[in-house]
């Protein structure tokens, strides 16, 4: 599964996207897996997961074909 990264998440994972060895898991499981792989994610104020361009809820299922993104705390405007 390809996961996009933005802002500080891009620096933490070392690129604009990463391949995660997962599929058909919950958002919560994906977050835990990402935190295991990139412990610095745990130091963020918060981070959200977006699925297909929408904020995802923790229980939502993520599938291989989805566009998944790590959304660190936003700071536009």
């Amino acid at each position: 599964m390809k996961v996009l990264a933005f802002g500080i998440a891009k620096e933490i994972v070392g690129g604009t996207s990463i391949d995660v060895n997962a599929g058909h898991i919950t958002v919560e499981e994906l977050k835990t897996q990402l935190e295991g792989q990139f412990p610095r994610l745990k130091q963020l104020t918060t981070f959200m997961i977006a699925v297909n361009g929408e904020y995802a809820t923790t229980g939502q299922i993520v599938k291989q074909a989805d566009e998944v993104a790590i959304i660190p705390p936003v700071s536009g405007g």
Partner: protein
Amino acid sequence: MNTNIHISAAPLNVQSCIDWVLSPESGGIDVFIGTVRNATKGKKVVHLEFEAYEPMAISEMKKIAEAAINKWPVHKILIHHRTGSLNIGEIPVIIAVSAAHRAAAFEACRYAIDTLKQTVPIWKKEVFEDGEVWVAAHP
């Protein structure tokens, strides 16, 4: 169309934003213009860098504009955001709202910028003389 949403790497133009929201039914326009300031917590800022998850950012900005139109009697609402490297005094964001009466224009404009800062996936990096920081990333 009553909404105008745009993300651009080129400088934003205030006058054309105001021209777009103006309509013959409007009695007032409120415009919020974000500007890059020269210091954060007393520390000198050299420049800012803005990065967007563009399709999602556009989608979230549209939600804000539509919510504002549903919530207040406003005519038109425009939200433009800049990306890339911005110097002091440059404009990261313009929000313009027209309405028959000023209260709705003020309230919808304030709602739009407050919500944008909470929900729209855009990130700002402050570049100082001796380092840089992604704003709000850490507690």
